[in-house]
């Protein structure tokens, strides 16, 4: 008694620290018991698995968890800041995979599509100029305002006509020799070559002009929609520089695309894959920003509408992908760096990572370099990167503040809407990147997005919808429980009162994550890390 009192007096800082730890434990009793329960469950499940297998089971769990995390993290960031449940998020993941596959397999097609897109988007950088004309239309009588729609439709028609006359080199889903399915095989065999350029429709100058004109007409039409609070702004040099930049980029790409294609097709598949990851993430980010600006921004006050519109966008993307890439699902050849075999393979230990082998051995378990190595590594990198972004940068600070009170952030003079767009772009970019990373492992199909989004939402429910670390924890748990159940399905569990070992059937895999979610939500209604409703 006296002793402890003396110690208390001498070491008051450590005493207060002890008390703080006790406080934290007390407040998190429910959370702690859930974590303890999970550890117990995991240990019990692992007990039935031979030691040499359990490490690979954990790593496979991490791998699935990392992919789920890439979807869940963006979804969480968007929901956390804007309260928008982006139901198209899974489809952006899926589209990311398809775009990544295209850059990886058919770079020539990607460039051919990119050039007209750059030209069409150029006029949109001159929005302040078009608004002056747009303002005149919105000042007209009611019937005359239908001119807005006339402009948009005729502009879009111009763009479509110009694109069909633009020489696109593309696969043909109806002819096996040039289907995506066959091309993936060709990449694997190393026999894929650039497709021969089609004969010209129109001279490129005509196509460029028509595309630019079409984009301009659409932009003028769009600018006629009245947006509250947009002041007439002068056309700055920055606007002009953007237009010039886009046009010059399109022109340069057009002129050098032959040699660019040859160069890219000469690269190893590893470099092409990394390029696919980066470019596809950028395409996903751009698409996300576009969706936010065009569709979500006018509807922030109407949550149900944003829900419906994202659902609709998802369906549109699915059908578009089916139309362009064909209905059958196909695989994506694994890049060379993760696909080696023969002498020296499987490599030993963590060094095996860079050996070019398809598999490596660690702690007596044979792991795939791509799935259990590279994907897990990327998941960790994204977790660390986004955490640093949130904690250490000004935009991260703005996001954390905006999650709580966007109005106050705006009252401080910060353009919150711009931050919304940036976060939407970031989240969509992460999803698209996840899609490319998933493709070599699970292949491509138009339905892959919905499956992953559902899993990601379950993961977020477990981790807490309001918490970014929660997204990581939930994804990790989902990955682990799925893989443990799959493994137990092979080895079986010895249960009392049963003569045969119990083998969970594959249908139990998704069920297990749902059961886990139900149990956790019963104890912690806002998830492991979520904060309760304020």
């Amino acid at each position, binding site marked *: 008694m006296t002793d402890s009192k003396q110690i208390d007096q001498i070491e008051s800082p450590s005493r207060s620290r002890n008390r703080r730890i006790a406080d934290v434990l007390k407040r998190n009793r429910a959370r702690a018991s859930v974590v303890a329960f999970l550890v117990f469950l995991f240990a019990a499940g692992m007990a039935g698995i031979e030691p040499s297998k359990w490490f690979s089971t954990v790593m496979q769990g991490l791998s699935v968890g990392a992919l789920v995390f890439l979807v869940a993290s963006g979804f969480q960031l968007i929901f956390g800041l804007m309260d928008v449940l982006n139901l198209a998020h899974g489809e952006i993941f899926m589209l990311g995979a398809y775009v990544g596959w295209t850059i990886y397999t058919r770079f020539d097609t990607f460039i051919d599509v990119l050039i007209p897109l750059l030209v069409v988007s150029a006029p949109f950088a001159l929005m302040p100029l078009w608004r002056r004309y747009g303002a005149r239309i919105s000042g007209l009588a009611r019937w005359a305002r239908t001119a807005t729609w006339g402009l948009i439709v005729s502009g879009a028609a111009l763009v479509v006509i110009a694109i069909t006359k633009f020489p696109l080199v593309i696969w043909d889903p109806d002819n096996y020799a040039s289907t995506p399915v066959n091309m993936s095989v060709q990449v694997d065999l190393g026999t894929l070559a650039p497709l021969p350029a089609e004969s010209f429709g129109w001279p490129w100058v005509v196509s460029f002009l028509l595309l630019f004109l079409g984009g301009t007409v659409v932009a003028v039409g769009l600018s006629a929609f009245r947006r*509250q609070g947009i002041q007439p702004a002068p056309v700055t040099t920055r606007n002009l520089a953007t237009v010039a930049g886009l046009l010059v980029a399109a022109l340069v790409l057009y002129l050098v695309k032959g040699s660019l294609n040859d160069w890219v097709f000469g690269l190893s598949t590893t470099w092409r894959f990394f390029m696919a990851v980066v470019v596809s993430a950028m395409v996903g980010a751009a698409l996300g920003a576009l969706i936010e600006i065009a569709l979500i921004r006018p509807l922030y006050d109407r949550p149900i509408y944003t829900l419906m519109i994202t659902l609709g966008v998802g369906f549109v993307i699915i059908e578009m992908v089916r139309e362009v890439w064909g209905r059958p699902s196909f695989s994506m050849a694994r890049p060379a760096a993760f696909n080696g075999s023969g002498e020296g393979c499987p490599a030993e230990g963590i060094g095996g990572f860079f050996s070019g082998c398809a598999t490596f051995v660690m702690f007596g378990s044979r792991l795939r370099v791509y799935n259990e190595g590279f994907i897990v590594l990327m998941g960790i990198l994204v977790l660390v990167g986004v955490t640093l972004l949130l904690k250490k940068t*000004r935009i991260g600070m703005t996001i*954390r503040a905006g999650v709580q009170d966007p*109005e*106050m952030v705006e009252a401080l*003079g*910060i*353009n*919150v809407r711009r931050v919304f767009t940036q976060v939407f772009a970031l989240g969509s970019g992460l999803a698209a990147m996840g899609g490319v990373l998933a493709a070599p492992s699970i292949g491509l199909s138009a339905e892959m997005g919905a499956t992953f989004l559902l899993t990601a939402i379950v993961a977020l429910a477990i981790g807490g919808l309001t918490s970014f670390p929660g997204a990581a924890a939930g994804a990790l748990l989902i990955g682990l429980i799925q893989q443990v159940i799959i493994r137990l399905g092979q080895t079986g569990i010895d249960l009392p009162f049963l003569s045969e070992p119990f083998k969970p059937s594959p249908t139990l895999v998704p069920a297990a994550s749902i059961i886990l979610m139900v149990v956790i939500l019963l104890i912690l209604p806002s998830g492991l890390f979520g904060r309760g409703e304020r």
Partner: protein
Amino acid sequence: MSLLQLNDVHTFIEQFHILEGVSLDVPEGSIVALLGRNGAGKTTTLKTILGLTPARSGSVVFEDTDIKDMRSFDIAAMGIGYVPEHRAIFADLSVEENLRIAERKRGDLDRKEELIFGLFPDLRRLIHLPGTSLSGGQQQMLAVARALVPDNRLLQIDEPSEGLAPVLIEQMMEAIARLSDTTTVLLVEQNFIVASRLGQSYVIIEEGRSVQSGNMSDLVDDQETIQRYLGV
């Protein structure tokens, strides 16, 4: 010379007509107290000036610019600081970050450090704590300090004395009086004693209309008006 002028401002929140004609004038360098009963539209007036609840008609002129149709962040960036009624301290940010986020130029906080910690010495000690671990009084100080970080021409302070202990109210009043040497203040205050000691002039709002304004010294002696509009 007037820094801010509202002329017959009408504001709707959804279909509700909240402000039905508010006119007021904030001369540069003064403290103007916005008085009125609960629900009269004082907070909405502040939010309308900032464009958070945009005015539907009338004019809001700040430094010779009509800011009625501008976006909130553009209005705020013109030099209007806002201390909302419930402080709106960001829970996930530390005290320092709560100040840092208000910077409009890099280094704003370092330049204002002396001023802020001179007014609120307590904050220096709390600088690394999370925003929510502060007491109500400390949060109020932080909210005012946050509005001081950028170079604001006008400070809108909503109910600074609400929920504070008397000794803290004294400190807060002293701080507001001192910072009014450099900034103009538009103050909403329920506590008439606080308002009358700080304000140089007043505007009374009743059911969404500005009904009376003048010098604070005249109002203090006008028991009839006080009874009628403030019901003390």
